């Protein structure tokens, strides 16, 4: 439980600072209690907007799905000592590839077509991420830079294909997007309005946990993440594990794109991936690179984003307040000395340190510089 203390305090503190900002940007009316009432009202609207009705709860869950996939993606990278800034690009190529298989193939039954669509997205994302992993392992090219560059290459590739061969040619379409995928390429609804990708993402989260903590492969991956030299000395194939870490990371981000295509949009649209890259890093860091932490923080991020609309509707405060709160949370997670100082918590205990090394940052990233 102690692992969740700092993140919880960071969230509470960020919400308090956010409250001050809301108070400062709110209207000035008579009465000393108005300001406090206004902030309470704003946060109440935020919670109602995220969980207040059946529709809003479904909306929050729908937003959680891609956050959880990409959060897990960044987490797997971190655990293997790789900092994946490229979730955005991997998600884009995953969505493109799965949409392509989704609308060009039309004669397969759902039981074959849908898995094919999802697997194609995984494969595209895995290749996109794997390139960065392979380059890091083989040549030392730093994955932070190569994944940023691959984001742009992916963006340009998407722009090229969505304006070209993959573009929806129907006369009503005016934007860069694919045609809608076939009925057999769509995730069936679990309940009305909520696609079954939710089950998939929960399954994937359990699988990630199992592989990382219960298999030799996962053990080796985490070993490379903590100390690649020691891992190599112990006989681990570091090149293979690094490539694997980025490949799986890309695979999960690609799957996020595929599930958005198969479950929500039924097509790939230019630019829909923007923002997932940095949000997913924030989610992984807030979740301290544990599966349960990533699950909770992706729900939190989704709820904040979903509820923001109602907050704006009721208080006229811009939805961007959510980004400010997220940034504050991340700041205090990254520099947990701030939280320790505010709440007078002592420095991390030795046992906790061993755990924290793998959560704070990719330890291996400094070994070869960039």
């Amino acid at each position, binding site marked *: 439980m102690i692992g969740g203390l700092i993140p919880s305090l960071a969230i509470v503190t960020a919400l308090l600072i956010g409250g001050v*900002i809301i108070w400062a*940007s709110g209207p000035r009316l008579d009465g000393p209690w108005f300001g406090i009432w206004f902030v309470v009202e704003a946060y109440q609207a935020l919670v109602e907007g995220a969980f207040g009705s059946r529709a809003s709860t479904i909306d929050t869950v729908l937003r959680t799905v891609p956050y959880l996939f990409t959060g897990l993606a960044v987490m797997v990278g971190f655990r293997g000592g790789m*900092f994946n*800034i490229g979730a955005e690009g991997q998600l884009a190529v995953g969505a493109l590839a799965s949409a392509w298989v989704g609308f060009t193939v039309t004669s397969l039954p759902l039981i074959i077509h849908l898995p094919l669509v999802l697997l194609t997205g995984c494969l595209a994302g895995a290749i996109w991420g794997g390139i960065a992993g392979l*380059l890091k392992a*083989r*040549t*030392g*090219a*730093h994955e*932070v*830079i*190569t994944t*940023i*560059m*691959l984001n*742009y*290459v992916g963006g*340009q*590739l998407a*722009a*090229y294909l969505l*304006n*070209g061969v993959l573009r929806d040619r129907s006369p009503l379409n005016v934007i860069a997007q694919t045609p809608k995928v076939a009925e057999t390429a769509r995730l069936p609804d679990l309940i009305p309005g909520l696609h079954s990708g939710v089950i998939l993402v929960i399954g994937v989260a359990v699988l990630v946990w199992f592989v990382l903590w219960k298999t030799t492969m996962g053990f080796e991956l985490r070993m490379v993440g903590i100390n690649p030299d020691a891992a190599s000395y112990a006989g681990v194939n570091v090149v293979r594990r690094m490539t694997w870490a980025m490949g799986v990371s890309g695979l999960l981000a690609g799957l996020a794109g595929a599930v958005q295509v198969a479950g929500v949009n039924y097509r790939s649209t230019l630019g829909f991936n923007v923002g997932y890259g*940095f949000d997913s*890093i*924030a989610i992984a*860091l807030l979740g301290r690179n544990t599966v349960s932490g990533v699950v909770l923080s992706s729900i939190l991020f989704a709820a904040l984003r979903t509820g923001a609309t109602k907050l704006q509707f009721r208080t006229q*405060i*811009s939805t*961007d*307040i*959510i*980004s*400010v*709160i*997220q*940034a*504050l949370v*991340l*700041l205090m997670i*990254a*520099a947990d*000395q701030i939280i320790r100082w505010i709440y007078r918590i002592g420095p991390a205990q030795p046992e906790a340190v061993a755990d924290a090394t793998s959560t*704070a*940052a*990719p330890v291996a*990233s*400094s070994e070869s*510089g*960039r």
Partner: protein
Amino acid sequence: MTRGRFAFIIGCIGLLIGGAEVLRSPDVSASIVAASMLATMLRFATPLTLGALAGLLCERSGVANIAIEGMMLSAAFGAFLGAAATKNLLIGVLAGMAVGVAMATLHAWLSVTLRVDQIVSGTVINIMAAGITGFLSTEVVRRQALVGAGLLPALRIPVLADLPVVGPVFQQQPIAWVALLLVPITHLVIFHTPWGLRLRSVGELPRAAHAAGINVIRTRYTAVMIGGAIAGIGGAYFTLESVPAFEPLMTNGRGFIALAALIFGGWTPAGAWAASLLFGAANALHINAQQFGIPVPAQIVGMFPYLLTIVILAGVIGRVSPPAAVGTPYEAD
């Protein structure tokens, strides 16, 4: 930075402009293509050059900087606000620089003092810049209906500015001139002054620098903060030289491209400047391709600089290596 690399980059620029000339449709005159390629290239290269120089100072001192984007974005907003509030463009530029320094100080505090992972710290600053500028631009600017104070006027060099084709080179706005001046200045400071030597030693082998009596922490703070000021000028370009308004996320990834230019140029000012011009030329071709009637898809041209950066980073054509201590926090004994 070897002469060979510099020549290679200039050659690439020539190839892009030459390619545009060869592939242009016959309806478009050669001089129009050259002139607009040149003008667009210079315009696009200005914030890249400044961003790359900012990153250069930071990384040469051993602090990785993926926060150039966030620094420039917040400075763009600060510059707009300063200029709009006072109706004075110079104060706008200074406000941009101040905001740049503030963000850089945060980066230094997180990564040098608190020893947070430098990439994480950069990520925090990028997310924070996007969030705060987005929030403030809707809350402050729209509510109080602040109007921009206009754009910095172009400074012309008489006679030369009237030349055909190359005229745009001699008629640029002040921040563009500042960027051009800062390239040799940074070069001189980094490679030919005692401070530059100290800076580089701190970025390569901080422990040895410390043993030689250099204050590693203070040197890193100074470098990161001067970098922040330069990034601030780069940010001011967006709201005081490009368009007289602030739009959320208006830097649009230019800070990351500046980072690529820095790497492409092998962590040297001249190289970073040449690479900025190359990225500018690629962008010029990218956005003008249709107008010139060039049959190559614009997006494929647009991919080119990023792919080249990956290839160079992987050491396929001429390896570049970063300052040895980049990414490692310094812990004094």
